[in-house]
């Protein structure tokens, strides 16, 4: 796996986002972290930033249960994006859901690398960075 340059966190719960920053911060201060409590804004960011064709391997943590635009809606729109954008981004579902149906749905989505149950832990971040997860 290529060296990760950026984390994007899309979750309407700001406390979760803070927690993610802290947890990632305990492992590395080198990687940029961008977070959005609005999925629409997160999507626009991805679309505009990566649409220019930059080289920036990125991990995106996506929540499922969000008002207006859910994680699933986000993935549907993500599908329409240019290949060069999608090549840069690896999506992990980060959800508090322990419902097997959500997990199953995530497993069937080609853009979701893995389903991570909250809270995000150091172990998970290390696993992702080392390419194990």
């Amino acid at each position, binding site marked *: 796996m290529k060296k990760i340059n950026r984390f994007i966190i899309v979750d*309407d*719960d700001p*406390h*979760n986002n*803070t*927690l993610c920053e*802290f*947890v990632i911060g*305990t492992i590395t201060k080198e990687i940029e972290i961008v977070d959005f409590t*609005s999925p*629409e804004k997160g999507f626009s960011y991805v679309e505009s930033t990566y649409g220019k064709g930059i080289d920036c391997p990125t991990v995106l943590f996506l929540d499922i*249960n969000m*008002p*207006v635009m859910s994680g699933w*809606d986000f993935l549907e729109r993500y599908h329409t994006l240019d290949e060069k954008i999608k090549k840069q981004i690896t999506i992990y579902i980060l959800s*508090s*859901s*322990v*419902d097997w149906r959500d997990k199953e749905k995530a497993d069937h989505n080609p853009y979701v690398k893995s389903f991570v*149950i*909250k*809270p*995000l*832990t150091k172990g998970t971040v290390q696993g992702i960075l080392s390419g194990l997860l």
Partner: protein
Amino acid sequence: MNKRLKILHLEDLESDAELVERALVKGDVQFEKRVVDNRVDFFRELREFAPDIILSDHSLPSFNSTEALKMLKDEQISIPFILITATISEEFAVEVMKGGAYDYILKDRMQRLPNAIYNAIERHTLEMEREKYIESLRTSEANLRTILENATTAYILIDTNFKVVTFNPLASEYAKRDLHSDLQPNTYSIDYFQGERRPTLRRMLNDAINGINSSNFEVSFFKEEGHLKWYDCNIHGIMNSEQRIVGVILSLVDITERKRMDFQREKMTGDLIQRNKDLEQFAYIVSHNLRAPVANIIGFSTLMDEDWIDETMQRNCIYGISTAVKKLDEVVHDLNHILQIRREISENKETVYFSDLIESIKLSLGGLLKAGDVQIEYDFSGADKMETIKSYLYSIFYNLISNSIKYRREDVAPVIRVTSHKDQDRLELTFTDNGMGIDLEANKDMVFGLYKRFHNHVEGKGMGLFMVKTQVETLDGRITVDSKINQGTQFKIEFSV
């Protein structure tokens, strides 16, 4: 004949009695004979001796053959009777035969007696059998008629030319009720039905007549008040003893009640499935919303275990934990609140005037209305009140109205219109606003879902509409929504009254 014939002889002259006896012996008749010469003895022997045949002289001192025949008739005793006489006029002979005698013998032609006896007995036996047969036929016909007339199935017999042969009273009742016509024998059966049903009926009758198959189907008729009547209908051929089809029987059973129960059960099952889905969704969303703060607590507290974290970090973690705990508490409170609604239906119903509700909501929203330039209009001329649980209806009104204010369009002053409408058995309340609307296409199943929100920029928990729906349903009502983005939203609430 193997048996000894029991002969009762009505005769006063011994010589004549002997004459008869001789003729019988000569004719090789095995018999047992008793002779009587008066009414009383004759009557007694009819019972005691129970003769197979009666031979009678015409005229006795105190009795005669005509009277004897009359006695038989009056007593309803059926025994063959032969008159034996010296001379007889033709008129008299005819009269005696009419009176019930089987034969007459002249005394100078006594040799004919044995054969006359055998013939009379044989004729009598045949007559008895026929009588018995006719009686049993009458009984079975009466039985059949009783069954047909009291059957809960309507029967119409139709011949191979599609003509009505006969029918039972129920068939005639159904025809009057659903086809608005008098069922008559010898009329064309297909003419009783509506035009579009005729080809099918003709085909089915034809199939039954030609022995291709019988038909069984369910059919409905509209009654005048718009109610459907349902029949289970059978058409099959009637076969005679030579296995030839001579007609068709059309039978109809009224299954309206069963159908009604079926529909009701289907509706109930549908409602139950929906309820179940709602509950499942409720459980899912509750577990999710409980799990979310719990995950944060786990995350932050794990971080606090790290040796290296500084004071700022520690404070941040504590803040994170306490926020999550508050959130957790909130969810538990919400849950309590929701469960209470479902339980508290015991609260008393009272007459609630809709305009009172609006006025008191206006008061409590006071400043908000002025500041937001909000206009609330209402027209309750359709129905101005209902019997209900006041606190629930207040909460429904309050939630819908405050939602309309909360989700107003930024550049348009909110106008909220509440109206009522009532017909026979339902009361409808309509809430219309000119706000930002909800994208129903994307959210059609979720509008009333717990913790579902459709707008980011306005503070909201996703409880309001869920509570409204729960309260409406607790009051046995139904709520529906129609909305267009940037045009407005309309909620309709229907109560049956």
